[in-house]
């Protein structure tokens, strides 16, 4: 594992141990719902399902189709806020 990979793993460990990971997830969930991202994704999923057909579509199809779009549509403000939260947490606990 690269240095970056190791650092990531350490950060993740700390976040998980202190329960901060869960809290951040909930914060992110709330923010993405508030700004309408969740509804956009839902609408998009429906399109994919229509496209592939209800009987044939798999979770993998959905993941493959909407992951890049989802990533691109996260508002900068949300990214910034999460980033600052993580930074603050690490400053406090590392």
């Amino acid at each position, binding site marked *: 594992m690269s240095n970056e990979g190791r650092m*990531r793993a350490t950060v*993740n460990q700390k976040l998980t141990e202190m329960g901060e990971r869960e809290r951040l997830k909930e914060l992110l969930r709330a923010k993405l719902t508030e700004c*309408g991202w969740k509804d956009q994704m839902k609408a998009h999923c429906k399109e994919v399902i229509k496209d592939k057909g209800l009987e044939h579509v798999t979770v993998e199809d959905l993941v493959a189709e909407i992951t890049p779009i989802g990533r691109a549509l996260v508002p900068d403000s949300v990214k910034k806020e999460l980033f600052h939260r993580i930074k603050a947490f690490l400053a406090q606990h590392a």
Partner: protein
Amino acid sequence: MKSDETIQETFSLSPKKKKYPKLNVLSVMSPAGCSHVNGYKVDNWKQNLRVIYQCFVWSGTAETRRRKAKSCICHMCGAHLNRLHSCLYCVFFGCFTKKHIHEHAKNKRHNLAIDLLYGGIYCFVCQDYVYDKDMEQIAKEEQRKAWKLQAFETRPSRLYSLESTGIGEKYTTWEPTKRELELLRHNPKRRKITTNCTIGLRGLINLGNTCFMNCIVQALTHTPLLRDFFLSDRHKCEMQSNSCLVCEMSQLFQEFYSGHRSPHIPFRLLHLVWTHARHLAGYEQQDAHEFLIAALDVLHRHCKGDTIHDNGKKANNPNHCNCIIDQIFTGGLQSDVTCQVCHGVSTTIDPFWDISLDLPGSSTPFWPLSPGGDGSTVNGESHLSGSTTLTDCLRRFTRPEHLGSSAKIKCGGCHSYQESTKQLTMKKLPIVACFHLKRFEHSAKLRRKITTYVSFPLELDMTPFMASSKESRMNGQYQQTVDVLNNDNKYSLFAVVNHQGTLESGHYTSFIRQHKDQWFKCDDAIITKASIKDVLDSEGYLLFYHKQFLEYE
């Protein structure tokens, strides 16, 4: 925010126009999962599964979290991301994205794995996630358990009410109950709401000079937040008798949104109003504004069952109520009395449901208005025609007023009676602001109606009349730059109640807004389409404005 159209453009997706037959989803996804899952359900499987959820998916305690942090990495590459899955048959963690878990499944013939992020069960034979009712049940329970543990841990000294928007009850999607499914099956008819549909519009029969009541009912049934409250059945009645006005209101909303086009006969409502507001009883023409205040008051009193505060205690304190009426209609009016000698300010804040505005032409002088706080440029009204605007009235309402030598106030600073000035400003704006133009003069000498035309805007910015704006003005910031990004004080007109005729014999009608830009005139039982010009040219007696932007608390 990209619209659906631009998403498709950006990612070059073309939705197929093919129509798929309606499938009964319940038959496609069997609640018994796939047959491979049944192979797992032997011996002590439930307990084993619970342990997996508790330790590796939703860790509620510090100990399980530590264990999860340490051990939840891919056994093949050490990564903790990449959609880590755990084998259900043995202790093996593998990435999904890099197919490490797939390899394990193939080699060991262990068909099932669980997604450590979301708790979904994957079947390698079916090559998709499967939804087994029993397993889902366990997953839900474990998630709830972990959630509660975590919420309690972070702030163990505070009890969380279910209503708090902090870490409280975990958000779960709505699952219909058996009863609800039954109801849906027995009532297969669905109503499609298009941009042109007239749902919610219904005439009201005049039961004998009851147009004053009909107008207010039209305004209330078209108040979006109030409509949402009642249509989602949020009222839980605590009254024993059949005389709850809130229940009747609820019924009224059901009638209005039923799709029936024949006019409704509000005899029950009228009876309840007579019962609870005696001063409005009788077949004489009453004042629509008085009716509005009386109705809000009775609704507020009858809403006791719906207000829940911390610790589950019901709020009986009229000053601290959180009922739907207060949430929507109650604002705070700040009154500052300034002593002319020591310049000490005594401030009080009183709740209000409406703002009553004096008009030019009444016995109290209207002009001149004091300088500063030029609201009319903010609200884009013009004085070209020489007519008075709503903003003029608001400026007059919020002007500093010398109380005169005959009305000295006891000053706490000077410890004596001194002359003072009084000024009203808005401390807290309600979600729905109702402006009452005082057209009916009932002074000792004369009783008359003031028909002065007052122009009012479609969009109103209340910023110049706020207590905070006044403070900035006093600190020397005279020319206030309009903060385009601050949307807190922006309002949109959605209902207008008008009075035609004289004090002795008159008739009330109302204009209400449907969807974004469609207006309708409600004249008792007759509903007709109206133009925005019709609305803005009307005389205006009661003006209802709704906040444009709502915020979470």
